[in-house]
């Protein structure tokens, strides 16, 4: 702050600006993602590839829906829930959305408490996140059961365009699979946090590597991504 000698060069060295800093990092003939833990960079790249997978699903859905001559089923009615004789459009989907957002909130706080080495709160927040995730998968199972009972199949359905079923089962199924895997890993990482593995440097049962609290953040990245994908599914598949 109080540097007086050659302020111009000091400034350009310390704060090269966003684009320049990216170019410097990429062209440095060293690791490109400086100060980013490798596990986190790899998690980001995995999420990028997962983004491609989900975008392919959503793009194929768009293509199918735009090119069909048969009317697309009205999702607002198909996913309505009847409570006490009153039809609530998309109610279950709305509840699932709020549950997933809440799980993202608890996960974000788990990451924060993980870095401040508060083991118990981190583990509890991760368990709460996992329970939210479990209830989400449970509601999805309920939704699938309901639709299958109503006669929705991957090749036909009573509501409209026959492609509706295959798109629905594929997209929500793949997303539900992601949530389920996330729940399993939430339990695993929460157990490690609770036991203090990241403080004692205990080696992992699978990789035999020592972990640290960055694992909580990587877990969080994956979990937020699951929430992020749901935002797009909710918008394009349920609301559009």
């Amino acid at each position, binding site marked *: 702050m109080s540097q007086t000698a050659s302020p111009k060069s000091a400034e350009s060295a310390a704060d090269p600006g*966003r*684009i320049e*800093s*990216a170019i410097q*990092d*990429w062209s440095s003939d060293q690791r*490109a*993602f*400086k*100060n*980013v*833990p490798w596990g986190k*960079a790899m998690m*980001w*790249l995995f*999420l*990028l590839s997962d*983004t*491609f997978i989900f*975008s392919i699903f959503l*793009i*194929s859905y*768009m*293509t*199918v829906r*735009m*090119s*069909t*001559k048969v009317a697309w089923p009205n999702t*607002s009615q198909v996913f309505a829930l009847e409570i006490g004789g009153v039809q609530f*459009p*998309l109610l279950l989907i709305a509840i699932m*959305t*709020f549950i997933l*957002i809440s799980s*993202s*909130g608890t996960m*974000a*706080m788990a*990451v*924060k408490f*993980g*870095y*401040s080495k508060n083991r118990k709160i981190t583990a509890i927040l991760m368990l709460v996140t996992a329970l939210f995730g479990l209830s989400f998968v449970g509601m999805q199972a309920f939704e699938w059961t309901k639709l299958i009972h109503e006669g929705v199949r991957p090749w036909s359905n009573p509501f409209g365009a026959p492609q509706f079923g295959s798109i629905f089962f594929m997209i929500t199924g793949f997303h539900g699979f992601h949530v389920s895997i996330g729940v399993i890993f939430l339990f695993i990482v929460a157990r490690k946090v609770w036991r203090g593995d990241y403080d004692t440097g205990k080696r992992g049962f699978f990789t035999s590597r020592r972990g640290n*609290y*960055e694992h909580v*953040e990587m877990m*969080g*990245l994956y979990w*937020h*991504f699951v*929430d*992020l994908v749901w*935002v*797009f599914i*909710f*918008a*394009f598949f349920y*609301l*559009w």
Partner: protein
Amino acid sequence: MEQDQTHGQEHPISTYFWIWGLLFVLSAFSYMVDILGFESYTRWTLILVFMLSKAGLIVAIFMHMAWEKTAIIYAILLPTAFILVFVSLMMLEADNTHLVREIFFSSPL
């Protein structure tokens, strides 16, 4: 902006509560789009606006992208942006298929 990663991502808890609340409100808004029965371009614009703001908040704050190095931001967000090229290609393709079906399958089934 770019903090030392050895200290990890530590931000005040109020930040997360704020974003959590905002996401709740935005989700409620996008649900209202269906309840209030907006149609056509109004509906699609509203859906996209709420969707993109929710996605932006999740990526920037919850996933800490706002505090990451520029190098990794570009590495992740630029390829994602290219998906839009794929989307526009498939829109052309779908329009074409639809047109062909209109011409050759004018009676349903």
